């Protein structure tokens, strides 16, 4: 059961091949057996999962089961889950049992899905390797000496290792697409505002977006249709109808115009990664697409602009962790200032502190115009690059990351870690959707092909990704880790 896609599992449950309880028990047993080594979960909610599985089976017996009923999945530990610890990978929230559900959690539960637990992540979603978690790093199931990527590394590793068929992640600068690429799964970052952020612990509010991580584009389409939509509780969620994301999956790609941003194939791109991506593009040509080179001239400004805007928003968002209303509180504070300062010194890890300090500095008097205003002006130029490119082509393609997964502990300097996100960060600044699909291997580690589209083009991205997965089997490859007799 553990190697099936969500869509296959839905069919099997509907046909009565096995019950949701049997499926849930089998996956919980795999988690029990394998996750000690992988560390992809922070909290496993076995009891609640089995109760929900029984409820789904009962609904099915009465003929009341919806298409997602009884399907197990996992939630990045950034989504508030009522009655369950929601740590966001931080010591600050280690004791935080959420009193409410995020909108996406509510929607997935209403659809009858079963959450097996909360997955590991970089603290407050700040990181590209999952090494910044208070709960320790996650390992990549393809190579236990490699990182799974970040910040949704636990979600990616759990799906890749067959612990769960799908998981939710969040993406502020690549945090769905890069770990999906590193772990050989499919991950979609929707258009900004497509999915409600209510109950999703905020990092950088103008960039954060939740999305599905799964074994196929078809599975991502199924999940996106469930979690997308307008939400009055998130003022930035977009009031726009949700199409059936599966309706166009089978559409022909004949005549599709693909743009290859020349800046995404330059210095620093590992030759094996480039070769895999170019092979994938040849597959698209064989499916009837045409390919041309395009330019996104402000690409090299995306990381600098991001490292002003995201830390600025983070420094504001994270000011709520004050030791008063929830979360960690220091012992025996001498006065109110001591309470704030020691609580925050003890509760936050190194990378979070770095970003709070950068954000506070760049927003402070005398620096605001030179940094924050400048970065937001550059953000408009970056978005315009994409709008211009989509005048000429339907989608853009390139690598999701310049290298395959790097070794655990390999990147000690924060700036060298930041530069890893060169191909993913601009997408969040522009607010457009992007998907990473498995497209081969480099040195035995998975390579992700990134496909980008205009705002609200998720249906087309999923169609383009699905057609590739009909023509190739990279997304069906599985790591040796976790094989029954391994």
């Amino acid at each position, binding site marked *: 059961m553990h190697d099936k896609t969500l869509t296959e599992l839905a069919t099997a449950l509907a046909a009565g091949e096995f019950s949701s309880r049997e499926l849930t028990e089998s996956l919980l047993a795999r988690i029990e057996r394998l996750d000690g080594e992988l560390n992809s979960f922070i909290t496993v909610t076995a009891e609640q999962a089995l109760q929900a599985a029984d409820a789904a089976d009962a609904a099915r017996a009465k003929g009341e089961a919806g298409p997602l009923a009884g399907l197990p999945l996992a939630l990045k530990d950034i989504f508030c889950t009522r009655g369950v610890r929601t740590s966001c990978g931080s010591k600050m929230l280690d004791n935080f049992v959420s009193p409410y559900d995020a909108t996406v959690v509510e929607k997935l539960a209403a659809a009858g899905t079963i959450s097996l637990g909360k997955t590991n992540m970089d603290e407050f979603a700040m990181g590209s390797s999952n090494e910044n978690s208070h709960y320790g790093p996650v390992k990549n199931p393809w190579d236990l000496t490699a990182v799974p990527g970040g910040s949704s590394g636990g979600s990616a590793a759990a799906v890749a290792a067959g612990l769960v068929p799908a998981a939710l992640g969040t993406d502020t600068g690549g945090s769905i697409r890069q770990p999906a690429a590193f772990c050989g799964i499919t991950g979609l970052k929707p258009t900004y*505002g497509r999915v409600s952020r209510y109950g999703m612990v905020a990092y950088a509010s103008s960039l954060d977006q939740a999305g599905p991580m799964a074994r196929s584009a078809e599975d991502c389409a199924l999940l996106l249709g469930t979690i997308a939509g307008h939400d009055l509780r998130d003022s930035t969620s977009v009031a726009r109808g949700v199409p059936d994301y599966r309706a166009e999956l089978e559409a022909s790609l004949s005549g599709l115009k693909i743009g290859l941003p020349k800046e995404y194939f330059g210095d620093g791109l590992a030759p094996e990664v480039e070769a895999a991506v170019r092979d994938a593009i040849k597959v698209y040509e064989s499916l009837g697409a045409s390919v041309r080179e395009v330019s996104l001239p402000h690409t090299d400004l995306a990381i600098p602009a991001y*490292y002003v805007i995201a830390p600025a928003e983070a420094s504001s968002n994270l*000011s709520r962790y004050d030791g008063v209303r929830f979360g960690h509180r220091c012992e025996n504070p001498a*006065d109110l200032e001591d309470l704030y300062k020691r609580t925050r010194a003890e509760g936050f890890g190194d990378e979070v502190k770095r970003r*709070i*300090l950068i954000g506070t500095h760049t927003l402070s008097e005398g620096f605001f115009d030179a940094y924050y205003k*400048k970065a937001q*002006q550059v953000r408009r130029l970056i978005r315009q690059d994409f709008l211009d490119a989509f005048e000429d082509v339907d989608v853009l393609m390139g690598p999701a990351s310049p290298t395959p997964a790097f070794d655990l502990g390999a990147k000690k300097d924060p700036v060298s870690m930041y530069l890893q996100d060169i191909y993913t960060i601009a997408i969040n600044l522009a607010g457009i959707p992007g998907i990473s699909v498995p497209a081969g291997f480099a040195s035995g580690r998975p390579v992700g092909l990134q496909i980008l589209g205009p705002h609200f083009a998720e249906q087309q991205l999923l169609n383009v990704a699905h057609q590739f997965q009909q023509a190739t089997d990279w997304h069906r490859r599985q790591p040796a880790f976790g094989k029954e007799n391994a």
Partner: protein
Amino acid sequence: MALEPEDVRRAAHLARLGLNDDEAERYVDDLSRILDMVDRLQAVDTQGIAPLAHPLDATQRLRADEVTEPNQREHFQHCAPAVENGLYLVPRVVE
């Protein structure tokens, strides 16, 4: 723009983040490298370009001023470190 230890201490104070002197020194180094990377922005001519705060240029929606949430004070205070009579406790501020 070069960063001094005093800048880090000032930002830490503004952010109410406790740092000892060793940590402040270490962050000077880290933050300087980040700001060096960020300084590439200064070379771009952005005259006349409006800052982009929201990727879809959306503005804040208005809604009717109606009560939509029930009072759940006790429920929401379950996760608080220290409460008494429905109030959050902090060290004495006014003598």
